[in-house]
C-alpha cells in the first residue's frame, strides 16, 4: 500500500534549485578552488592532419612558474580513450577502433588535438610556457568531407586505410527492394543533416587532486555521468584502482550530450596530478569548446519512400554516411546505428525498412550524441520524405500521415523496436486545430499580397528514450549496463535524503524527483533532499542522457521507496502490536486497517534509529534502502509539431510565425519543467534548422570557431511557442507511466521548419532547402529553382 493522494505530482512547482542558480550560489567546477592549486594549459594542433616529427619542450620547462610539461611520449603507455559501443559491419568484422591518445603521440588528427600539457603556478604562466614549445609538424593532406572521406587518398588511421570505421545495416533488404519494385509512387531525397557544436553555457572544466595520505584521487569535472567517467578512466585508460578515485560533477551548466564523454583533458589531469603533487585545474576557453567538445549530427543521406496508389507506405530505404570525426568518442558508434536506424518507422506502419550506415573518420573533432542523438536525424529523414510525398501526390500532409499511423500497440517495427503504447492521431488533430491550419490559406494569401511567401510544415516524431534493457543492448554491442541506481536514506527525524545516479545539469531533478518522493512518503517536499553527481556519495549511476532520468532514475528511486515502506510497515506493525499484513501506509501514516491506531512516518523512522521498542530479533535497525532498476524496454514519447513561416523571397529571410507542439510524454510530474524542456528543445531544434551549422574548410580549419560565425539562437529568432502536453498514453512498463521529454523538441522541430520553408517555395520549384536555412541558403535555393 502506498500514498494514494498526490499533493505534488502533476503540480507546476517552481524549481527548488533555481534559487541558488539565480542568486549566484551555485557551485560549478570553475568555482572550486583547491589549496595549492596549479593550472593546466593544453597546447593544441593548428593543423588538421600532421605527423609530429619532434616536440621540443626545454624552453617551456625552464619558463617561470612551470611545474611540468608533458607530451605524447610521456603518456605513450597510457591507454586510449575507449568507445562504449561495439558495432559490427555487415561482413561481421568489428568496427575499427584506433587508439585515441590523451595527448597526441606521433600524429595530430584534427585542429585542436592536444599536443602538450603544461602545468604551472598560474594560467598565464602555463599559457606563456606553451608558446615556447616547438613542434616540428609534417603537414599531411586533410580529409574533412563526410561524403567523400571513404574515397580519399589519405588514411587518417593505419587501422582504417579507407577511413571507414564500419558499414552496418538493419532491415530486410530483399523485402524492401520487392516493395519498391511494385510501388505506385517513389519519393526520393538526398540531404545533409548539418553538423552542430553543442555550446553548453558552462564550458568543460576539471580540477584534479591527489592525496598522498591515502593514495586517492579526487576529480571535480563537468560530467553528466561521473560514475561512468570514473569507470572508463580507471579501468580502461589509466589503470588506477576505481575505489581510490572519486569523481564529483557538481553543478553543471548544460550538457546536451557533450558532457557524457570521457575526454582527454580531465584524464590527462588525473594522470599528471600525482606527478605534480598539487591539484591541477583546467577550464576550457570558449574557442577550445568549439574545437574539442564532441560535435553532433553530420550525416549525408539518401532516402526513398515507396507508396501504393492509396498513399500507403510500402517501404523505406535509406543510406547514410555518418562522420565520426578524428577518433571514436565514447558513444559515437551507436548514434547513427542503434539510435538512428531503429527509429526509421517513425509513427508509421511502414512494413519494410532497410538502412545502411557507413561511418567514416575525418580530420575533424569527434562526433557523438548531441540532444536527440540519432533520433533527430531519423525524424528528419522520415518526415522530410513523408511531407515531400504528400506534396508530390497532392495529398494533405496531415491526411497522408493519418493514413499511415500505427494504430495497434504494442507494435513491433521492422527495425527492431517494440513500441509499447501510443495514440498518434489525436496529437496531430490537436496540433492542426491549435495551429489553425484551416486558416492557413487565408494567411498565405495575405502574405502573398505583401510579396511574401508563407509555408506550413508538419512533423510527427517518435522518440525512443531510456535505452534498454541491458541484456538486449549488450547483444547489440553496448559495453555498459543501462540501469539506474537510487538510494533513499531516511534520517531519524523522518527527513529524507535521496541519492540518485541520474545527474541534473539543468533538468530540474531536485524538484521533480522530490515531488515523487514527497508524495510516495506523504511528507512535505521540504523534508526531501536530492543528491547527485558524486561517486563518493552515490552508490552507482549511469547518469543522464537519452531522456532517461525520470523513467529509469526516477523508477529506481521508486523501487527504493517501496523497500523503505515495506520495512516501515514491519516496524509499525511491531509498534502497533499488529501483524504486518494488517498495516497499511497512506498519507504519511502507517495504520492498522479499519482502526484509528496509527504511527506517523517520522515516528517509525525514529524507532528504526532508536530501537528501544523494536523487533531486533527479526529486523535490522535503520531505514536506508537502495535499488537498481533495469527497464524492460525503451519509452516512446511522440508528438505532432506544426511550423508556419513567412519568407521574404528577395532576401531569403525566414521568419517563424507560429510554432505549435503537442507532445505525449505519458504521465507528467511537473508540467512547468516539462514545458520548459520542450521550449529548450525546440530552440535547439530550430537552431539546427535555421541558424547553426559547423563548417570546416578543406584544410580542416574550423570556419565557425566563434560566435561571430556560428549562429546560436536568440530569443528574437522565435515566436512564443504554443506548447501543449497531451493527456497521452502512459508508458506501460515503468510504474510512473512516464516517458521522457528532454530531447523531443530538438528531434521534432527541424523537419517541421524545413517542411514549412519548402512548402512556402514549392510553387516556385524549390524541392529542398539545406539546413541551416539561413537567408543566403534560402535565397540560393530560390535562385537555383528559377534557373
Amino acid at each position: 500500500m502506498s500514498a494514494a493522494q498526490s499533493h505534488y505530482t502533476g503540480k507546476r512547482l517552481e524549481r527548488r534549485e533555481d534559487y541558488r542558480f539565480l542568486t549566484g550560489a551555485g557551485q560549478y567546477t570553475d568555482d572550486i578552488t583547491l589549496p595549492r592549486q596549479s593550472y593546466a594549459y593544453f597546447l593544441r594542433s593548428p593543423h588538421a592532419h600532421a605527423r609530429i616529427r619532434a616536440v621540443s619542450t626545454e624552453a617551456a620547462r625552464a619558463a617561470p612558474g612551470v611545474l611540468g610539461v608533458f607530451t605524447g611520449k610521456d603518456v605513450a603507455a597510457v591507454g586510449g580513450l575507449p568507445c562504449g559501443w561495439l558495432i559490427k559491419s555487415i561482413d561481421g568484422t568489428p568496427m575499427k577502433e584506433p587508439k585515441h591518445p590523451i595527448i597526441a603521440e606521433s600524429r595530430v588528427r584534427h585542429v585542436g588535438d592536444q599536443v602538450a600539457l603544461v602545468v604551472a603556478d598560474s594560467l598565464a604562466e602555463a599559457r606563456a610556457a606553451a608558446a615556447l614549445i616547438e613542434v616540428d609538424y609534417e603537414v599531411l593532406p586533410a580529409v574533412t568531407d563526410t561524403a567523400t572521406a571513404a574515397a580519399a587518398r589519405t588514411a587518417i588511421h593505419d587501422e582504417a586505410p579507407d577511413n571507414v570505421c564500419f558499414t552496418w545495416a538493419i532491415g530486410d533488404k530483399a523485402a524492401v527492394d520487392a516493395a519498391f519494385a511494385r510501388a505506385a509512387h517513389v519519393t526520393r531525397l538526398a540531404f545533409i543533416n548539418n553538423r552542430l557544436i553543442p555550446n553548453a553555457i558552462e564550458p568543460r572544466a576539471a580540477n584534479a587532486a591527489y592525496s598522498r595520505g591515502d593514495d586517492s584521487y579526487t576529480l571535480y569535472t563537468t560530467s553528466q555521468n561521473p560514475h561512468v567517467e570514473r569507470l572508463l578512466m580507471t579501468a580502461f585508460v589509466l589503470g588506477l584502482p576505481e575505489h581510490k578515485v572519486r569523481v564529483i560533477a557538481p553543478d553543471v551548466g548544460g550538457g546536451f550530450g557533450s558532457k557524457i564523454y570521457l575526454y582527454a583533458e580531465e584524464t590527462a589531469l588525473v594522470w599528471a596530478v600525482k606527478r605534480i603533487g598539487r591539484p591541477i585545474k583546467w577550464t576550457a576557453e570558449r574557442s577550445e569548446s568549439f574545437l574539442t567538445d564532441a560535435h553532433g549530427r553530420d550525416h549525408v543521406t539518401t532516402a526513398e519512400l515507396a507508396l501504393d496508389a492509396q498513399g500507403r507506405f510500402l517501404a523505406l530505404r535509406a543510406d547514410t554516411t555518418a562522420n565520426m570525426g578524428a577518433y571514436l568518442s565514447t558513444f559515437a558508434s551507436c548514434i547513427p546505428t542503434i539510435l538512428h536506424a531503429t527509429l526509421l518507422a517513425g509513427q508509421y506502419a511502414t512494413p519494410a525498412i532497410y538502412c545502411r550506415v557507413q561511418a567514416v573518420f575525418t580530420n575533424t573533432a569527434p562526433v557523438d550524441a548531441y540532444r536527440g542523438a540519432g533520433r533527430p536525424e531519423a525524424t528528419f529523414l522520415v518526415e522530410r520524405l513523408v511531407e515531400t510525398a504528400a506534396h508530390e501526390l497532392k495529398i494533405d500532409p496531415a491526411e497522408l500521415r493519418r493514413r499511415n499511423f500505427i494504430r495497434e500497440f504494442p507494435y513491433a517495427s521492422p527495425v527492431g523496436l517494440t513500441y509499447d503504447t501510443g495514440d498518434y492521431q489525436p496529437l496531430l488533430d490537436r496540433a492542426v486545430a491549435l495551429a489553425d491550419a484551416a486558416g492557413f490559406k487565408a494567411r498565405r494569401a495575405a502574405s502573398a499580397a505583401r510579396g511574401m511567401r508563407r509555408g506550413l510544415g508538419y512533423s510527427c516524431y517518435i522518440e525512443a528514450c531510456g535505452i534498454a534493457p541491458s541484456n538486449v543492448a549488450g547483444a547489440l554491442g553496448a559495453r555498459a549496463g543501462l540501469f539506474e541506481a537510487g538510494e533513499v536514506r531516511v534520517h531519524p527525524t523522518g527527513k529524507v535524503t535521496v541519492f540518485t545516479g541520474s545527474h541534473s545539469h539543468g533538468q530540474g531533478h531536485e524538484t521533480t524527483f522530490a515531488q515523487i518522493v514527497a508524495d510516495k512518503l506523504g511528507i512535505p517536499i521540504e523534508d526531501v533532499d536530492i543528491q547527485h553527481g558524486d561517486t563518493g556519495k552515490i552508490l552507482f549511476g549511469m547518469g543522464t542522457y537519452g531522456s532517461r532520468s525520470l523513467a529509469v532514475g526516477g523508477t529506481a528511486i521508486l523501487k527504493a521507496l517501496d523497500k523503505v515502506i515495506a520495512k516501515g510497515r514491519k516496524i509499525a506493525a511491531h509498534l502497533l502490536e499488529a501483524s504486518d499484513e494488517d498495516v497499511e501506509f497512506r498519507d504519511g501514516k502507517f495504520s492498522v486497517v479499519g482502526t484509528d491506531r496509527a504511527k506517523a512516518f517520522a515516528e517509525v523512522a525514529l524507532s528504526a534509529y532508536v530501537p528501544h521498542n523494536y523487533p531486533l530479533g527479526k529486523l535490522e535497525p535503520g531505514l536506508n534502502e537502495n535499488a537498481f532498476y533495469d527497464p524492460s524496454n525503451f519509452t516512446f514519447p511522440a508528438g505532432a509539431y506544426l511550423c508556419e513561416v513567412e519568407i521574404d523571397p528577395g532576401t531569403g529571410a525566414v521568419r517563424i510565425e507560429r510554432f505549435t507542439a503537442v507532445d505525449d510524454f505519458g504521465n507528467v510530474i511537473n508540467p512547468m519543467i516539462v514545458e520548459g524542456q520542450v521550449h529548450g528543445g525546440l530552440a535547439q531544434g530550430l537552431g539546427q534548422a535555421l541558424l547553426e551549422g559547423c563548417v570546416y574548410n578543406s584544410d580542416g580549419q574550423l570556419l565557425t570557431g566563434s560566435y561571430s560565425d556560428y549562429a546560436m539562437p536568440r530569443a528574437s529568432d522565435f515566436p512564443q511557442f504554443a506548447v501543449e502536453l497531451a493527456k497521452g498514453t502512459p508508458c506501460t512498463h515503468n510504474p510512473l507511466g512516464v516517458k521522457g521529454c528532454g530531447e523531443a523538441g530538438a528531434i521534432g522541430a527541424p523537419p517541421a521548419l524545413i517542411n514549412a520553408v519548402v512548402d512556402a517555395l514549392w510553387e516556385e520549384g524549390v524541392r529542398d532547402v539545406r539546413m541551416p536555412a539561413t537567408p543566403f541558403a534560402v535565397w540560393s535555393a530560390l535562385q537555383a529553382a528559377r534557373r
Partner: protein
Amino acid sequence: MQTFELKQPRSVAEAVRLAAADGEARLLAGGQTLLPALRLGLAVPGAFIDLSGLEELRGIRADGKQLVVGAMCRHAEVASSAEVRKRLPALARLAGAIGDRQVRNLGTLGGSIANSDPAADYPAAVLGLGATVQTNSRTIAADSFFTGLFATALRSGELITAVSFPWADQAGYCKFPQPASHFALVGVFVARFGKQVRVAVTGAGAHAMRMPALEQALAQRFVPEACDGVQVGSEGLNADLHGSAAYRAQLIPRLARVAVQQALG
C-alpha cells in the same frame, strides 16, 4: 594576457604628444574591438592611450547647419539624444542597433570609424550623410576618409575629435544582420539633401562605399520604387559563409528601398 602600460592623458594635446612619442601605442576609445583582439592575442600593444577622460571629446552639439558629435560619444548617448532623435532619427536608430547593450554603452563613434570595420554601422552614416571628420590637426571629408579594409585616411598618431553631420532633409538606414554576429551583412544608409541623394553601403565591400547608381535613381525620384530596377554589380564585394558577392549585391537595392521607406516616414 600580455602586460601593457595604460596612459591616461588629461587633454587632447597631451594625448597627441603621447601618441607621437610612442608609435606603437594604441589609442583606446571604447575598446569594443581592441580589447577582444588583445584577449585573443591578435593585438599586443606595449601601451594604451586611454581617451575616456577627455571631456573635449564628449558631447553632442547642434546648430542650424549641422550636428557635431564628439568622438568619444558612446553609441547609447547618440541613440538616446533628444536632439538626434528629433532631427536625425536615422542616426539615432542606427546607433541604437549597434552590437548589444554593453557595446553601446562603451563603444564610441570615433573608435568605430577609426577602426573602419567593413561591417560596422557608423561608417555608412558618416559616408551617407557626407559628414566631416575633425581631427586634432585637420578636417577630412567622409568621401576620402574610408580607404580600405580596417584602413582610413588618419595618419599615425592622429586623433579624431568629432564628426560633423549636416542635417539631411530625410534619411534612413536598413541593416540586414549576419545571422551569427548580427553585424551588418549589408547595411544601406540613404540621405536626401534637397535634390541631392547620398547612398552609402556597409558590409558589402572592404569598407563603406557610396552607390552612385542608386543615388542617381533616387535623385530623380525619392521613392522606394526607384530602387527596384537598379542593378548593383558584385565585382569586388565580400563573400563568406553568410553570403556570396552576388547575394550581397542584390541585397543592396532591396535594403535601400526599405531605407527610403523609413526616410519618408
